[in-house]
């Protein structure tokens, strides 16, 4: 078994940004993503998870290096100033490199 290096981009943001973020994921060529509701506290106050419109989501995407960087760049350019959001990149390893 060979493990291939891959990037994981994690985005935590207000739920209202959802459709915008998933559209961007399509644009940079992600083959899939995973999403769930979270509570959060940050610079723009605390978000309790009761009313969906005021809540947070966490989105996780596995990508190769280049689209991952592209995604981060686009998030900074178009999203960070507009939405309550954080995003970070980490190194992971997968088996089926062609899947991502």
């Amino acid at each position, binding site marked *: 078994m060979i493990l291939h290096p891959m990037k994981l981009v994690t985005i935590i943001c207000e739920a209202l940004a959802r459709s915008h973020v998933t559209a961007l994921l399509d644009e940079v060529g992600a083959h899939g993503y995973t999403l769930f*509701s979270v509570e959060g506290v940050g610079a723009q106050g605390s978000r309790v998870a009761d009313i*969906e419109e005021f809540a947070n989501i966490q989105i996780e995407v596995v990508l190769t290096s280049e689209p991952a960087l592209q995604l981060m760049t686009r998030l900074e350019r178009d999203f960070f100033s507009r939405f309550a959001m954080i995003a970070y990149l980490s190194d992971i390893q997968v088996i089926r490199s062609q899947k991502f």
Partner: protein
Amino acid sequence: MTTDLVQAIQANLLSPAVLFFLLGVFATLSKSDLKFPEPLYLGLTIYLLTAIGFKGGVAIASAGIATVWLPALMAIVLGTLIPLWSYPILRFIGRLSPVDSAAIAAHYGSVSAVTFIAATNFLQSLNQPYEEYATAFLAVMESPAIIIGIVLGKLATQKPGESFLPTLKVALHEACLGRSVVLLVGAMLIGFLSGKRGYDATSGFFVAPFQGVLALFLLEMGMVAARRFGDLRKVGLFLVAFGMLMPLLHGSLGVILGHAAGLSLGGATLLGVLAASASYIAAPAAVRLSLPEASPTLYLTAALAITFPFNITVGLPVYFEIAKWLFGETP
């Protein structure tokens, strides 16, 4: 009329619905760990919107469209005009930025379904009849003001050469196919089509438990509103005054128009309540996406922490007393 008013406010404050709302406020302020998880909130919302929509549709079918269209048109006109005068007030008296003014104007022109439902509850507790089809006004007043407000805001923030049609399309989709519109209008259509027979089959669910469910839901809304009380300091005195005086103005206008359109005392009160209420779910969602430069602290605090509690506790009896006075029921 003053003693009447005081008594009416007192009576309203002692209804289960308002008391549960205050309990929610208390729970948040006292830092209790009480909370309603999202699926519960959503479940209650779905129930309340489909129930009120369904009953409204049944009522439209029995009253006939011929009866409903005129007051419904008035409701639309009112919803369209409110942002047009709210904007200059916010902009020039309140000295808020153009985009914030537009955003807040959108919220006050649109409506709060929960406030409307609480108002029907209020009238029922007084055995005051009203046109059940008034739900139609709720349905038609939700979107126009949001569109108007967003256009105002886009005009204010537009850079030369930039088209705002794409944003407007998003806002239109949100305003016309958002969760609450689909549920309310859909259930209304269902009520209209299935009529009395459908009503009888489902009244054990849509009618009998309704007032109790509303009370429980207001417990949650008390918590939601109180969480924003901390932002009251940030928004300034002007907005606090705006959030209570504009509802009084709009409420009176709504009552007068309802009277002119031939509605009963109860129905005119409901139109007043709709005009007086400010949207805190549909409008924020649309505005957040279309006018990201506008500050949510301002519009959400105004709609949710000022106007909503004001209407639930004091506004409802006030608009009703105004209507009674207009209809000549109080000497």
